[in-house]
């Protein structure tokens, strides 16, 4: 596979995640599709880090550093996001997005 194929695959993954966020009504599934979109961005970053090879024959580690930071931030985001979802479920007894429309509980 060359760089274009990796970018195409990561674009398709992003499209699937994006469609999932648009289509699904369950807040946890939306959160999972959000993770898919994040991983699609990671894949294209790693593909570019492999594409730019330095003179010494090493891949460009800046791309991999960014992916490393994205993974850690996404982990912290999932921890807090799911805590919010659980307290939302405790307050409104539903995870269906259409029932949670008013800002005031």
């Amino acid at each position: 596979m060359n760089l274009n194929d990796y970018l195409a695959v990561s674009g398709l993954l992003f499209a699937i995640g994006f469609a999932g966020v648009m289509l699904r009504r369950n807040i946890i599934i939306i959160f999972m599709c959000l993770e898919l979109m994040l991983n699609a961005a990671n894949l294209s970053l790693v593909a570019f880090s492999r594409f730019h090879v330095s003179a010494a024959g090493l891949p460009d580690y800046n791309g991999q550093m960014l992916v490393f930071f994205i993974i850690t931030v996404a982990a912290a985001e999932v921890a807090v996001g799911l805590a919010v979802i659980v307290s939302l479920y405790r307050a409104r007894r539903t995870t269906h997005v259409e029932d949670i429309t008013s800002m005031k509980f």
Partner: protein
Amino acid sequence: MIKDYLPILIQAVVAIGFAASALVVSIILGKAGKRNPTKDTAYECGMLPEGNAQPRFSVKFYQVAMLFILFDIEIVFMYPWAVVFREFVRAHHPVIFWSMLSFVSILTVGYVYAIKKGALDWKK
């Protein structure tokens, strides 16, 4: 190199194949007995099961899972640090020791907060 990871793929296929084939062989060999209602109820030392099958488990369990993710990141940052530590020490860059010390002390503040707020004691 990528060539070294091929055996891992082979081992994964063999491990999953072994587990699946063990189950298939046990289906073929084991005789399916006739089903009766008592066999189909959940096993609760002989008594009739009461209460719903999935009790609401306490908040502690998923709180532990969340704190696990956050401290798993701390471990993940420690591995590259451990690998390059002695190189940086030989190259007289003291930054590596103090930067990790400050990172871990920031996280220990969160850890102490979690303990003080009773997230990690299971006394009740």
